[in-house]
């Protein structure tokens, strides 16, 4: 099962390649398991997406390059229906 990482998808806006920042403060243990090329699941309150992990040497930052064909909306609270891409 892929590692699931909580992210803020708004961070894509500041990356020229539209990658999502992985904040090590949010899940320090999981971040220790990361390595470039690892396939993970990025998620927030509303959706999740598969992504390939990259490491930015310049900024020393973990990033996720999403595969948007693998996006899936998460069920809203009180709603069991999931909406897929």
């Amino acid at each position, binding site marked *: 099962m892929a590692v699931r990482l909580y992210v*803020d998808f708004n961070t894509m806006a500041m990356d020229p390649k539209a990658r999502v*920042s992985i*904040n090590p403060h949010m899940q320090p243990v999981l971040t220790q398991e990361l390595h470039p090329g690892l396939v993970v699941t990025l998620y*927030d*309150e509303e959706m999740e997406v598969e992504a390939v992990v990259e490491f*930015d040497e310049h900024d020393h930052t973990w990033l996720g390059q999403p595969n948007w064909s693998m996006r899936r909306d998460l069920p809203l609270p009180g709603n069991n229906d999931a909406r897929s891409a």
Partner: protein
Amino acid sequence: MGVPPGANVILAGHSLGGLVAQNLPVLSELGYNQRWKTVRVIAFGSPIMNQLRLPDSITRRFAVWGDPVVTQASYWAAKIGFKSMFFPPDISGWSRKPIWIDGGPGFLDPIGLHLAYPNSFDLKGYDALGDQPGSQVLQLDAAHERQWATDFSQSTANERPWVVRGGVATSKQLQAGTAKHRGVPDPPGLYGFSVQYQPGKTIQELAAAGKFRNPQISVTTDAALVAAGVAAGYAVSIVKSPGAGYHHTVQVPLPLPLDLAVALSAVFTQEENPARFLGP
């Protein structure tokens, strides 16, 4: 600012402006500015926080029922034991209630409530000094009028300085998004979370520029965001930064403290994403 020395001054402001208005006379008492005599301070929708205590006789603080900037910002400032030279907490403010007024319909819209003051029917019962009943009327001297800022009350809904994010701006999401802005070298660096922001742009324009993939967006205004930050005891500012669309960064401490994250999250409201991006 062109105000004659010794002039009687009435300070009035909304939101953060009202907070500043409450504190300018305090600075005067501390000796920072003794050029004017403040005869009245009128604040609309501002956090209640002037520990150095202006006399009650000169302050009038109007608060629309449900305005989150008045209630939650003051609550968080008090809860965390806010300490600052200029903006300490007014714990006693809870016993010195503001003048509660009706902002009209829209009790489920926190932003609308915060911006409802120009339309409040209750305010029509107060005179120019904020007294009821009162008879004081200000006669404006157009020949000497100066304008230092945009008259926000004249803005239409679409012209308000909106701040828009994709998804639900929970405290957790804001904490996850707070990071060093890549592409801005240290020093000085840039630390904060991403928003779409451009005064004059509509919510839909900002949402489209952000290419948000979330079903929902979170919306607030620059004034509400900054006021919430100040009330929580932190300097929060919105600065233009490299990125897609109208990208700006809300500058906050890194990592984002939970109390500030909660305070900022509280001023966002969610609505359906009007321009959801589903491309590759």
